[in-house]
Each structure stands twice: as structure tokens, then as C-alpha cells.
């Protein structure tokens, strides 16, 4: 068998394995007609075109009515009994009234990611309205070119257009002041960030200090090694907890806030986000303290069909009073929004009972509209009126000035 025969064979029958040495000369005589490569190229090209067109069609929404785009984070209003229909229930009436489509764009990220997205799109905005930026994120700073010079300013100034609705008196002035007195963002909902625990695991009988919890208690190895919190760089409850600690230790107790973190380093568990922290808290019986929300007992009761909740809150105690940090989530008009008038009407609508009445059981936050009646399970939730707010201890200007510094110092202590 000469080598050239083998090669001929391979050229003509390319599908045959290369290492087949059993070559019959008769094959060569069955000379198949040469195929036209152009046909194959054409078929391949057609297949790719069909595939690309398919993807394009599947991912392009049919242009129809005017569409109002609302950016928010991934879990917005996703905690109710039927998350799949919630947008239709809550925003359907607005669509009907104005003859438009409302698209709630839940970006697969948290509120901080939404802000990055807005910042990236600042020159050519896509969204009309944004929901979910909170009272700490609104203070973040960034830079933009002003007269070709990069100038540092508040990101809220770059991405939001201030708006004052006629019905602003539906909302408690305290919330407006806590979020943004300049009305770039208006309160949509609010809640307290605090520690929670499962009473079936620990309670005030087994751990009396839970009733009047101090950071000194939380520094003891017993409680510190039971605590799960979230990374302040990556999670808003985590950041709220860092501010809680700074407010209490630095401003109330009057000690260096960094000491507590040094004491508990290696004992506490810091998870990147709330859902990861919740998973640890839920699955690991030795981690029974979680940094979470004051509405958790109401959530727990709701899922126990209204009976007394298993989840309880533990607020921080100092000198005869209980303290907690209040998170206020805002709704804002995007600067340069494609449909500014419609967006303003939408914001007005979002502050009415039509939207606000759905917040308690779907978002598990308190509605900003103070006239909305709360469901009965909220008797178990911790309301801001039940505690002293740390927001007045650590002011907006304190935070704006020191936030990035605090985060760096937190890294200095905790990393490594």
C-alpha cells in the first residue's frame, strides 16, 4: 500500500478516520463526484443568518405603545404570594389610564448596581424612573466632565432631576429629610435595619442580653461567633449595620468605632449579600443572629398564617433607649428621561395608595404614604416610632464626608 493511495482515499472520503490503514484499492475506483464547496458555504451562511435573526426577534420587543421604563433592583416587589403577576396588579391601572406600557426593568443586581447603570447611561438615558436607591447611596460621589474638566460631585446630581409632586404631604416630612431634602429622590418605602434571631434557637430566657443588646455584648465570643452580617461594600443592610455601629460607638458611647470590629474579627461571619447571609443564618444553627430588617417578624408571622412569629428583633441599647438605623428607599425622575411628563405622572401614581398598599406584603417595607393601612401581621414588625433613629445621630453631612474613609478603615481592620 503506497502512501499516495492512502492520501487519495482521504482526500476523497474526508469523513473516514485518519488512522484507518485498511484501505481497499476498490474504493478509489468508486470515484465520487467532487462536491461544490459554494453550496456548503451558502447553507452554513443561511443557518447562521436564521440563528441570528431568531435571537434578534426573540430579544426585541415589538414597538407598540409608548413605553415608560422603570429601573429597579432584582428583587423589587418579589416577596409576595404571587410575584409573577405583581406588576400587572400594581401598575396595570396606570397603563390603562394613560394608554401606555410600564416596563419594570429589574436589573439583575442590587440598588448600587442600578446607580452604576444610570451613571453609565447618563449621556443617553434609557430609563424614565428609578426606584430603590436608598438614603446612603444617594450621598455617593462621582465625577463628570464640566467644561472639559473632570469635576467631583454627588452622583444624584448627575442622574436625577429634582421633582416635587403636588401630593408630597402624603409623606412624612421626616422621611423626606432622611432621604433627600432636595427631592432628587422621594421616599417610596422605609424600614429599620436591625438584628434578628429565631426564638426557637435562642431567646431572652437563654440569652437575657438580647433584650438590651450592646456592642459590648456583641463583642463577647458567645454572641460574636453567632453573628452573621453583610459586607458593607456590597450590601445595603451591611452598610447600614456599619453605620449603626459607628453611630452608637463613636457618637453615643464615645469610643473608637474600630475597636469593636477588631474585637470580633474572625468570630463574626461577613457574607457578601443579604441572601447569602440569610442562607447561613437559616442553615447553620450556630449562627443565630442576623443583620436584617425590622419587618422580619411580620414576614415570619405571615408564613405561619398569622400566628405569633418565630423571628424576633434585637435592637441596640444605650442609656435607657433602643436604637436602629432607618433605610429609606426612593423613587426618582431620571435626568434627561425620554418621557419626563409621563414619568412625573408615574411618580405621583406610585405615591398613592394604588401602589403603596401593595408594598407591605410584597416588598416587606413600610409604605412611605402614611395614610395606607397596614396588614395585621405588621403588629409584629418594628416601626421607626418604636426606637430612637440613628439617622439623627449620624447626619447626612457626616456620612457624605466620611463614608469612603470608613469603608477603607473597615477594610484595614477586617481584611487579612
Amino acid at each position: 500500500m503506497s502512501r499516495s493511495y492512502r492520501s487519495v482515499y482521504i482526500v476523497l472520503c474526508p469523513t473516514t478516520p485518519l488512522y484507518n490503514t485498511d484501505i481497499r484499492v476498490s474504493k478509489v475506483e468508486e470515484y465520487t463526484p467532487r462536491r461544490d464547496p459554494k453550496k456548503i458555504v451558502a447553507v452554513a451562511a443561511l443557518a447562521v443568518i436564521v440563528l441570528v435573526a431568531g435571537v434578534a426577534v426573540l430579544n426585541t420587543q415589538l414597538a407598540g405603545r409608548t413605553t415608560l421604563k422603570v429601573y429597579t433592583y432584582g428583587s423589587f416587589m418579589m416577596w409576595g404570594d404571587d410575584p409573577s403577576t405583581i406588576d400587572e396588579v400594581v401598575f396595570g391601572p396606570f397603563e390603562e389610564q394613560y394608554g401606555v406600557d410600564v416596563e419594570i426593568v429589574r436589573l439583575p443586581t442590587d440598588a448600587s448596581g442600578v446607580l452604576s447603570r444610570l451613571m453609565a447611561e447618563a449621556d443617553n438615558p434609557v430609563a424614565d424612573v428609578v426606584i430603590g436607591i436608598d438614603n446612603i447611596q444617594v450621598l455617593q460621589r462621582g465625577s463628570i466632565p464640566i467644561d472639559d474638566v473632570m469635576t467631583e460631585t454627588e452622583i444624584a446630581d448627575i442622574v436625577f432631576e429634582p421633582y416635587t409632586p403636588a401630593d408630597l404631604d402624603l409623606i412624612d416630612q421626616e422621611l423626606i429629610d432622611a432621604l433627600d431634602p432636595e427631592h432628587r429622590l422621594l421616599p417610596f418605602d422605609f424600614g429599620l435595619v436591625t438584628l434578628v434571631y429565631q426564638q426557637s434557637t435562642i431567646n431572652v430566657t437563654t440569652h437575657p442580653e438580647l433584650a438590651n443588646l450592646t456592642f459590648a455584648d456583641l463583642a463577647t465570643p458567645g454572641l460574636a461567633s453567632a453573628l452573621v452580617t453583610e459586607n458593607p461594600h456590597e450590601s445595603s443592610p451591611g452598610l447600614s449595620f456599619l453605620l449603626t455601629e459607628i453611630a452608637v460607638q463613636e457618637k453615643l458611647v464615645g469610643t473608637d468605632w474600630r475597636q469593636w470590629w477588631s474585637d470580633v474579627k474572625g468570630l463574626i461571619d461577613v457574607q457578601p449579600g443579604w441572601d447569602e447571609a440569610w442562607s447561613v443564618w437559616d442553615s447553620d444553627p450556630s449562627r443565630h443572629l442576623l443583620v436584617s430588617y425590622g419587618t422580619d417578624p411580620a414576614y415570619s408571622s405571615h408564613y405561619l398564617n398569622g400566628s405569633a412569629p418565630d423571628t424576633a428583633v434585637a435592637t441596640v441599647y444605650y442609656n435607657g433607649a433602643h436604637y436602629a438605623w432607618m433605610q429609606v428607599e426612593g423613587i426618582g425622575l431620571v435626568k434627561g428621561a425620554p418621557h419626563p411628563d409621563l414619568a412625573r405622572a408615574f411618580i405621583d401614581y406610585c405615591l398613592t395608595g394604588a401602589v403603596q398598599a401593595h408594598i407591605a406584603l410584597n416588598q416587606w417595607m413600610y409604605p412611605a404614604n402614611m395614610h395606607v393601612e397596614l396588614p395585621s401581621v405588621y403588629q409584629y414588625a418594628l416601626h421607626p416610632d418604636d426606637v430612637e433613629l440613628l439617622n439623627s445621630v449620624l447626619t447626612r453631612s457626616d456620612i457624605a464626608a466620611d463614608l469612603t474613609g470608613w469603608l477603607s478603615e473597615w477594610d484595614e481592620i477586617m481584611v487579612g
Partner: protein
Amino acid sequence: MGGLPGPGTLGRLVPFVLLLAFLVYPVVGAIVRGLVAGPGPSSVETLTSGITLRVFAFSTWQAVLSTVLSVVLGLPGAFLFARLRFHGRGLVRALLIVPFVLPPIVVVVGFIRMFGAYGIVDSVAMVVTGSSTTVVDLATGVVGIVLAHAFYNVPLVILMVSSSLERLDPGLEESAELLGAGTLQRLRHIVLPHILPSVAASAVLTFLFCFMSFPIVLSLGQGRYKTIEVMIYDSFRWFEYGRASTLAVVQVLVTMTLAVLYSRLATADGSATGRTRYARTVALGEVPAVLKALALVYVGVLVLLVAGPVAAVAHAAFYDPVSATYTLDGVTNMFVAGAGGGLLPLVNSVLYATLATLLAVALGIPLAYARRDAGGWGRSLVSMMVLLPLGVSSITIAYGLMMSLAIPLGLTTSPWPLIVIAQTVLGLPFTAKSIGIALDRIDPELLDQADSLGASGLQRLLFVELPLLAPGVLVGAVFAFAMAIGEMSATMFIALPQNYTLAVVIYRDLAVRKFVQAGAASLFLVAACVVSFLVIERLSEESGGGVL
């Protein structure tokens, strides 16, 4: 090598132009903007900060530790895999690729369920020791991080080293045996020198992956441990673009140095190439009992480490931890169209990954030719270009694509082409490499024959060269597909709800405690990957040979 033309010069330039436009330009643009305009700490402030140094040190030593563990655990597997004939080899090979496609958050959940406090391993340990509280927690801190990295990379070492072993000419070993060399001598003088380049190459690749590790460190590190990639992520979140850019540059310098090293090592490996079929193997029955027992223990450890977390994922698809019941809701949700349903993400995942794979192959072929024909530094340059996607922070890529392409081109409302591009770029290193290896094995005489028989250029390419490249193309395509379908960072940053892929949906579902839906989506991801790998294995009898 004059008789090996391949695509023309123009064809070879296309991938470079595309890489420049869709990778280099966006990334360099983002980095330069950050360095020049900030805001946030400047380069000098970042580089002189103690925290940067600590993070750099941690990134390095945990990657070294992870690499050592992966190689130590992977080597016996590579020998077993290359030398032992057993039923279901193809299936095991397909399963080994599974860790590649699992989104890190799924691995984290699987890991905690398997190795964490009160997890499966801990429960067994508690029963054995009679303890009522947790005994071992292998899922947190450095131990957890290193083990999770081993989960990802042991299969990589096994696949790479075993494919090198399969290409060792058994004639060499037989000659040595005839000349009286013992097992140890053969191992030391023939086998080890032969596989050394592949071991080193897999080690470098493992180091690269671990050095840039991001969600694993974020989740298992308890806030105490950060890699440079985590720090870049934090900096972007806080609009400290100055720091993010500086760190991205530091990272690229390290990874590209390694990439050059890797390309040199891989080249050395390719020079000793033989064909897969020659590999010397033994059947299970011929192995002595002691070795069999050792192998069994080893396989047990491997199954625990690699299959354990995957099994935990499968379990999560049917078990709802909130109501503590078994349910099929997750699986049925996969076929629900419309908001919240799994059908669109499933279709998106498959379509994007298919397109990205086709593109990665189409670009990988000319790149492989360019790499082969370039000499010396040109070769290293091509290798660097190809490996760049593995060495650049994925956060930076996503941000760069968004700023430099999506917004100027008005793609933010329909960003699916960018997702496909990002996925293509990620798969390219794998297709280019495996096609390159197949290319080195083509006998130039065959092409001369085709020419002398009067085949046109296109005919020769379609009917001779490409069929000869087919095994390499197919294997590269599998890895590209796996990388594409598991990609999350860029997709997450760019996607709107109509573009969600399964990987993104898993994140979204976990965030709102839809555990079974997340579990089912993970399971589908695993199934899609295993099935496609098995199909490819069938299609290509000669698969598996040196994809990496």
C-alpha cells in the same frame, strides 16, 4: 512548511481586528479613563496603600496553595484516566467538565451544603464522634476557598495531563522496558519529562483562575479575604474608578506574564505530540489489588470533592428548604414562558452560547493559523491576545463593553449582541488552543496531494483541512460552549430582563429565596453541558486530545 496556506492574510487579520475592537479597545478605554479622570484614590495612593499590598499578597498565596492542591489531587486522576480502560470513560469525561459551567454562586451553595457546618460531611462526622454540635466546617475561610478552587481546577488538571499522557508514544516506554528500565526509572526518565509541560501549563492556568477568583472568595471569605478582583469590584461599586483602573493594570501585568509563560510551556508540550490512539492502557482486571484499593480511595475523595457539591445542587432542585418539602415546581417552572418562567432564559442561554461558540470557532481557526506561522515573539503576541480574555478582570470587560460600545452604539435597550460578543471572547482561548494543536498534527503531504489532484482552495479548506481539524474544533467548541453558557459577570452587567440567561436567573432566584427554581436552573445548565459534551464525544472519535 510552504504547502500549508490556510486562510489568507486578510482572513487572519479579522480576528485581531475584532479582538482589538471588542476587547482591547473597551478595556483599555475604561482603564485609561479611570486612571486619568478618577474619581477615587490615584494610582500612587492605591499602590502605596497597605491594604492593596495585603490583598495582592493574599491573591497570590491562596492561588499558589489552590494550585498545589489541584495538581496534587489531579495527577493521580490523570494517570488513572489515561491508563485505565473502564466502562463509562466518556461519561466520566463529560462529567468532569461540569464544574466549568456551574455559576460560582451555585458552587458556593453546593459547597456549604456539602462541606459547611451541619452540612453532609459535618453530619457524618457528628454521628461518628457522637457530638451534638458542628465538628468540621470545610466551607469557610481559606480552607473553603482553597477547596472550592480545587473543585474547579482538579478536573482541569486531570483533563490536560491525561490528554498529554495519551499522546506519549508507547514505543518509547516499551524500548525502555526491553532495555531493563524499572517502573520508577521509566516514570522518572520518560513519563515525567513528557507530561511536565502539561502539568506546568495546567498549573499556570489554575493559578490564573484562582488569582482572579471573585465570587468564591466573596462568599466563603467571610469578608476577611479579598482578591484583587474583589477589590476592583468594590471600587467600581463605589465609583472609585481611579483605584479600579490601577488594580486592573496590576492584575493584567501579572496575568499576562503568566500567559506568556503558559504559551511557552504549552508549545513545549505540543512538540512531543503523538496520536491519542497510541496510548498504552490496562483493563481494570489487570491491576494489582493494592493499587486497586488505592485507586478506589482516590476516586472516593474525588467523588466527594467534585461530585458532592454537584449532587447537592441536584438535591436543591427538588427540595424546598423554606417549607422543608420535596417539589417539582422548579422543574416545571423551567417550561413556563413569560415573566419569571425559565423558558426564555433557557432558550437565551442556548442561543447565545451557540452563537458565541460558532463565532469562537470561526475566529479560532484563523488565529490558530496565525499562531502557527508566526515565529518567536510574534507567536507569543498571538498567544497573549488569545489568552487576554482569561487575564483581564471580567468586571472591567463588562464595564468597558458597556461604556465603549453599548452606550455609544445605542445598544443598551437591546444589548444581546454584546452578550454574545462577551461570551465569544471568553471561549476564544479554548477554541484557538485546541484548533492549534489539531493544526500541528496535520500531515502537510495530504494537503500537497489535494493540490496536485486539482482541488480548489475552498475545496481543500472545506473537504481536507477542516475535516482534519474537526476533532480540535469540536473539543474547543465544547469548552467554548461551557464557558459561554456559564458566563455571568458580563451578562449580568449588560442584560435586560428579556436577555437573562440561566446563569443570571440563578442569581436572581437565589436573591429572592426561590431555591428550587435556582436549583432546577442549575441542573438544566449541568444537563445541557453534559449532553452537549457527550454528543461531541460521539461525533468525534478522537476527541479529548489536548484541548487546553
